[in-house]
């Protein structure tokens, strides 16, 4: 039996999984929508990965990252749970060892990571607001009646992107409607939206950061050719988008799972294990903490959100 390592990246919009062999080469990968239910998404993800994994492999390590990393870490009994910044950096370094700048725009987070000789030297993340991220882009695409897959190529057709104020989701939305009502062409609005995402990103997340090449762009939004084009235009540098750019977080955490393997063998049959969460407000003291209790096979395995540490 050959060892292999599973990395799961559970984002707000999509859930990604990869299985790496001992040389950190991808054996299997899968990308599905989270649809607001990370637990079910991971069950589906594991089913999908399990079905076409050759029999000669056994899983010797699991890592989780992304916004639901802790929850899913408990569910699959991961040997490592890490934040997505570190995971993305490690994943990208495995393909581009000399990378200097990682731009990442995901479902509700956007971040920039600066590296020097393979070490993170600086990073920053968006100010906890969804403006200019993937979820914002897809909701605007829906509003304009354009499939998100065509959004990028449509933006490329435009010569005169419309100016859109994208500092804040609410402002941007009203501005967008306004522009559409004024009769601007759709492709120009789409291009304007892509450009405003780039400008907003650089003014917010990228503020005061020294962006040097090689630059790698990843996260769901990196699949949007319009955004890539405007990044290159504004930065005046080539922006690399890896074919696996959406998987970098999962690859990174799989590598970390490999490096931190504890010798245990994992099964992917978690369909049969019941896993539930229960939210409640605790009234024992005036903190009124919102507790989240997690049950695995009807047994309480953890609870989060308590300030006093009683739980």
């Amino acid at each position, binding site marked *: 039996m050959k060892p292999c390592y599973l990395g799961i990246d559970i984002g707000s919009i999509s859930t990604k999984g990869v299985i790496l062999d001992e040389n950190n080469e991808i054996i299997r990968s899968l990308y599905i929508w989270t649809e607001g239910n990370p637990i079910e998404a991971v069950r589906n993800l594991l089913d999908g990965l399990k079905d076409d994994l050759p029999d000669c492999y056994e899983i010797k390590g699991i890592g989780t990252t992304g*916004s639901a990393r802790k929850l899913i870490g408990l569910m699959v009994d991961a040997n490592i749970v*890490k*934040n*997505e*910044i*570190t995971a993305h950096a490690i994943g990208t370094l495995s393909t581009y060892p000399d990378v200097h700048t990682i731009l990442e725009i995901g479902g509700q*987070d956007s971040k920039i990571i600066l590296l020097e*000789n393979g*070490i*993170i*030297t*600086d*990073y*920053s*993340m968006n*100010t*906890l607001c969804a403006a200019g991220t993937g979820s914002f882009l897809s909701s605007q695409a829906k509003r304009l009646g354009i499939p998100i897959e065509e959004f990028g190529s449509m933006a490329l057709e435009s010569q005169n992107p419309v100016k859109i104020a994208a500092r804040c989701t609410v402002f941007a939305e009203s501005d967008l409607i306004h522009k559409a009502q004024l009769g601007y062409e759709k492709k120009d609005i789409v291009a304007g939206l892509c450009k405003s995402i780039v400008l907003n990103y650089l003014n917010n997340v990228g503020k*005061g950061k*020294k962006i040097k090449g090689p630059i790698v762009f990843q996260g769901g939004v990196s699949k949007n050719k319009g955004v890539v084009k405007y990044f290159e235009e504004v930065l005046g540098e080539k922006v690399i988008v890896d074919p696996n750019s959406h998987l970098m977080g999962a690859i990174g955490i799989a590598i970390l799972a490999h490096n931190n393997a504890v010798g245990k063998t994992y099964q992917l049959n978690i369909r049969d294990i019941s896993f539930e969460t229960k939210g409640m407000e605790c009234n024992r003291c*005036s*903190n*009124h903490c*919102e507790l989240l209790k997690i049950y695995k096979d009807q047994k309480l395995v953890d609870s989060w959100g308590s*300030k006093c*540490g009683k739980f």
Partner: protein
Amino acid sequence: MSKKTISFPHMGNYSIPVEYLLHHIVDANILIAPKISSRTIELGTKYSPEFVCTPFKYTLGTFIEALDMKADILIQAGGGCRYGYYSELQNQILEDLGYQFTYINLISQGKTDICKIYREFKKIDSHFHIIKALYYLFVTSKMVKYMDHVDDYIRMNIGFEIKKDSFIHANQLMLEDFKKAKGFFHLRHMYLKHFRKIKKIPIEKPSNCFKIGVIGELYTLMEPFANYDLEMILAKYGIEVKRYTNAHYLLFEKKKEVKKYLKYAREYIQYRMGADAADNIGRTKYLCTHDYDGIIHIKSSFCTPEIGAMPIINKICNQYDVPVLFFSFDANTSKVGIETRLEAFYDMIEMRRKK
């Protein structure tokens, strides 16, 4: 005439000295408002103007909770930025909500009008005695000093305690005792006794542990609810935390210290920049040149003085190649987002050390 009920906003543990002071100088019920909770924030946000800084919302929420618990006198202090103007608007908002109360603003238009405050207290309690008040004011100021001193020690060591929560328990015992202080000498005796005990709490601290300086806007620094227990999260990672801002600093040292900071960081700044902005720039330079692994700058959203300081802090950190993390907290910031950023920050300083 029935006894009046006095209440005031929360900030960290400072409700203890404030209660102590009021208890000794006026004959009135003292209502400690419920600790800041999600309900406080909900109430505060609902009735606040849209882009006011967060402390306004938190203190307004606390006042509403206190008024609902039958408080009829509210006390607020002012400060060197927008904070100084909170009182008049909060007073108006609460009146418009139909509450009946007296609002005492200790610092009005940047100044403390002692005569006016004296008159206000005389109205509450006709036996109010100024000499007695001044004595207890002195004792309270010492209490604040002792609390802050112990706090500084705890902050540096809590990440390394062997038995979980031993520092917090010891600190709570001390604060409980402080409430019973009969006078200055009694207070000092208790302080010395407890601090000796706290220093004896066993710790396991490597000599080259990670050190982080936390700077920023005062309310967010001092109220753990407003900074989402940032210091406790850092402690979990085994990090020594240095924080300058505390009540003692603001009340007694700031005036003198600002001048020092301005001199110390004169290649960056020439003037005071409002509130604690200049102080924080001076501290940034100090932290950058004294082997700190990183700096975390926190503030509430829309805090104008700190926004002005941020580009300069960033510049200094870039020059000295010290990582800096900026947080802007609002009433609806997600704790998970903060933890992710802190975890990544820790990973980063760890990687840097290894290099």
